[in-house]
């Protein structure tokens, strides 16, 4: 608390008022006020999202795209309006370039299973980075095992930045795809994706960006970036779970075979032959997550209304303050010291294992993550088995950072 008063925080919006929009933040855990520092795993939802999903079920629900009745038409309009909101959010050229999936994992798997299977062949190379989440590693390994592509891994520096020189060295005539994270879920590093895309395109490769840890922290303009595919999950963007997005440039999507077969993705079916639907329906077989897609729109509107300038000012202040408070703790090491980090601060503490840290903090009402964060190759690169990770969203406060720092001090006293 004392430290909080020594600095004037950059107050870009009224955080107390904003927190009131997130009902769950008012609850307590183990008899303590909840300090939620796990938004990078999944963010909490504002009332607008919760109310929207409830309203869909109470007043607007029917299946989409098929029913010749009022409610089906209504729900279909709302579903497509949500797609239009995502288009605007990513500044895609056309709403048909927005495919609804379950989550970013499914979005990446979709690209690997359709574009990858159709356009890659044995010996072609896919370039990843050392800081990828398993969801941007395993689909490519499955494709490797199926068709014999090769996986190359771009190195990071000790600060946790992508080595652009190391990346360049991997690019060659056989490079067909670069699949890389926008923001590291462990290190918080922001990858210079515009530059990565420029270099990859110069080498003749397509680029998929895993934007799971980016879209809640920064404006993404897929056309300005020039990326070919962009994937994110709704639940990390203060939206519902069960809904994700894949953006793909229309000329690529048009040429891709379907992902799953079923209803909604065809234009005609006989036992001899099936004509597939156009995009995006071709990739959306079966009844989608209707209410969740519709309720993703108010999440996006919530974020856009605050504005990324204000969100960034607020979150940058939190990251800087957390870095300062945590660095001052004896024996604590912060993993990932790239400038301009987004969202997360990962750390280890002397001999205290990340799980013990998380257990002790949990009893103080503080929710953090501990473990390998689905990035085991990165853990290996860092030389640790696990890290503790505090992650920050637009609703967190310096007071919560203070609680975290005090909680870690308590851990340190136990394990000293």
């Amino acid at each position, binding site marked *: 608390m004392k430290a909080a008063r020594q600095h004037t925080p950059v107050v870009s919006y009224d955080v107390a008022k904003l927190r009131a929009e997130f009902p769950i933040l008012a609850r307590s855990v183990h008899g303590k006020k909840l300090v939620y520092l796990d938004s990078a795993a999944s963010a909490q939802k504002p009332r607008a999202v919760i109310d929207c999903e409830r309203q869909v079920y109470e007043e607007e629900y029917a299946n989409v795209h098929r029913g010749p009745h009022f409610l089906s038409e209504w729900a279909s309009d709302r579903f497509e309006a949500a797609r239009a909101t995502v288009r605007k959010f990513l500044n895609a050229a056309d709403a048909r370039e927005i495919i609804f999936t379950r989550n970013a994992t499914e979005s990446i798997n979709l690209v690997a299973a359709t574009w990858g299977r159709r356009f890659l062949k044995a010996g072609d190379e896919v370039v990843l980075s050392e800081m990828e989440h398993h969801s941007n590693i395993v689909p490519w390994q499955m494709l490797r095992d199926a068709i014999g592509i090769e996986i190359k891994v771009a190195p990071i520096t000790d600060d946790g930045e992508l080595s652009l020189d190391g990346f360049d060295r991997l690019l060659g005539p056989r490079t067909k795809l670069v699949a890389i994270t926008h923001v590291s879920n462990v290190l918080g590093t922001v990858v210079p994706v515009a530059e990565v895309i420029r270099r990859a395109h110069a080498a003749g490769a397509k680029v998929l960006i895993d934007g799971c840890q980016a879209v809640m922290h920064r404006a993404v303009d897929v056309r300005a970036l020039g990326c070919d595919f962009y994937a994110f999950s709704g639940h990390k963007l203060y939206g519902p779970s069960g809904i994700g997005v894949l953006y793909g440039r229309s000329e690529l999507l048009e040429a891709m075979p379907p992902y799953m077969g079923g209803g909604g993705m065809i234009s005609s079916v006989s036992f001899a032959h099936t004509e597939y639907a156009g995009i995006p329906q071709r990739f959306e077989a079966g009844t989608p997550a209707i209410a969740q897609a519709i309720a993703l729109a108010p999440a996006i509107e919530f974020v856009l209304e605050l504005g990324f300038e204000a969100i960034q000012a607020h979150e940058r202040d939190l990251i800087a303050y957390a870095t300062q408070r945590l660095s001052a703790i004896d024996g604590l090491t912060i993993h990932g010291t790239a400038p301009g980090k987004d969202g997360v601060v990962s750390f280890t503490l002397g*001999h*205290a*294992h*990340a*799980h*013990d840290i998380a*257990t*002790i903090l949990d*009893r103080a009402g503080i929710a953090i993550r*501990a*473990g*390998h964060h689905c990035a*085991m190759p990165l*853990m290996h690169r860092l030389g640790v*088995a*696990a890290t503790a990770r505090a992650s920050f969203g637009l609703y967190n406060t310096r007071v919560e950072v203070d609680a975290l720092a005090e909680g870690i001090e*308590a851990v340190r006293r*136990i*394990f000293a």
Partner: protein
Amino acid sequence: MQDDLRDLYQEVILDHGRRPRNLRAIADASASAQGHNPLCGDQIKVYLTLGPGDVVEDASFEGKGCAISVASASLMTELVRGRTLADIERLFGGLHHRCTGQGEAPSEAGIEDAMEKLDVLSGVREFPVRVKCATLAWHTLQAALAGRAKVSTE
């Protein structure tokens, strides 16, 4: 510190976690196995030397993990030495009962002292997600005895 945390991180646990006993490989072990907790990435390897009558002559472990898993492994290597496989089975049952409060407690006849030493892990009961930490070494020991090379707590 809160009571439930004090019960979990008892001095004995912290001591075993800090200075694990029998943290070494056994070159000519009768049995060994690798244990893995995929949830946290913890890896441990357990070694055993069996003497006449299938009595454990030596037990050791290698690996890294949280305070609970390391302390449990360390304690286990001390407790199983000189015991028969049947006694070890009962000790594991006793540990499981202490950590979960579920099932029936096995008979402690003849191994009361060893069973009592497992009481330090009963604080885990209030932390269900940590039960796997406390039992990883024991599951790995079982796998070693069963001749399996790898075990996972999943």
